[in-house]
């Protein structure tokens, strides 16, 4: 990773009042506030030409939900992490900046219940079954109980 590239990302991060760190060689980790993340990714794509969004991962961090956008650029990584509150899990979509993010956002919506404002497919399911009851909690939250979900989906059968 060239020094100029890192400095450029650090400048974006400073503008967004974000913390940067380098956990490994060739990897830049940026922690951005939720209100700034769209602006930051927009600059990353349009100004630094980091064009490849590898994936978006969601985490359950007890108090908050974490969302990490993994970008690759040549052989380098840029990870953009942001926190979303668990009580009102809503954040802005980046589909208009990176169209391919639509499926990653749907996956996180299915699995962790985060709503991405601006994603046109938020009303659809990607991975969950069609018969998924609307009142069940998202399955990848740490508070969800797989045995109860299986019972609701009628997958638990009494064995003799």
């Amino acid at each position, binding site marked *: 990773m060239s020094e100029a590239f890192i400095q450029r990302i650090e400048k974006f991060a400073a503008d967004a009042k974000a913390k940067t760190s380098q956990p490994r060689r060739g990897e830049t980790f940026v922690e951005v506030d939720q209100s700034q993340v769209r602006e930051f990714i927009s600059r990353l794509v349009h100004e630094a030409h980091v064009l490849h969004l590898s994936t978006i991962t969601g985490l359950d961090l007890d108090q908050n939900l974490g969302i990490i956008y993994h970008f690759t650029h040549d052989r380098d990584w840029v990870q953009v992490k942001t926190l979303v509150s668990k009580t009102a899990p809503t954040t802005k979509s980046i589909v208009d900046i990176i169209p391919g993010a639509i499926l990653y956002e749907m996956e996180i919506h299915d699995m962790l219940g985060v709503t991405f404002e601006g994603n046109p497919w938020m009303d659809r399911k990607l991975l969950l079954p069609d*018969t998924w009851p609307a009142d069940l909690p998202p*399955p990848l939250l740490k508070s969800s109980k797989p045995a109860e*979900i*299986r019972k609701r989906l*009628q997958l638990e059968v009494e*064995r003799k």
Partner: protein
Amino acid sequence: MLEQLAKWARKRSPWVYHINASSCNGCDIELVASLTPRYDIERFGAVLVPSPRHADVLVVTGVVNAQTKDRLRRVYEQIPEPKFVIALGACAAAGGVFKGCYNAGQGVQDVIPVNMFIPGCPPRPEAIMYGVLKLLGEVK
């Protein structure tokens, strides 16, 4: 007499319909491998057919989940009697690595009756052929 003939034909030429009930595709590849010239399950008359209405044997791979459960039952009901079901692989037998997940059942036998389990993750083509032939030996 006619019944005898039908039984003989069924034994010598079992038509197989394969359904993937959310398998990872490992077992499916091994099932296809048992059709290749190296193993050649067709020399025993077993043919893969494209419709369950033509089939004698239903081969199910994969752990059955909420999405595939009803579809599997519907396919099973379309097969004419007498019908035989083979559960192929660890997932179809008991849930495999997915056992305990929120969306995974505990095998095919919770949804439809099963005649033969072929374990393995995935089972080798030899195991699949051994299972099919053993099932045919049971056909009376």
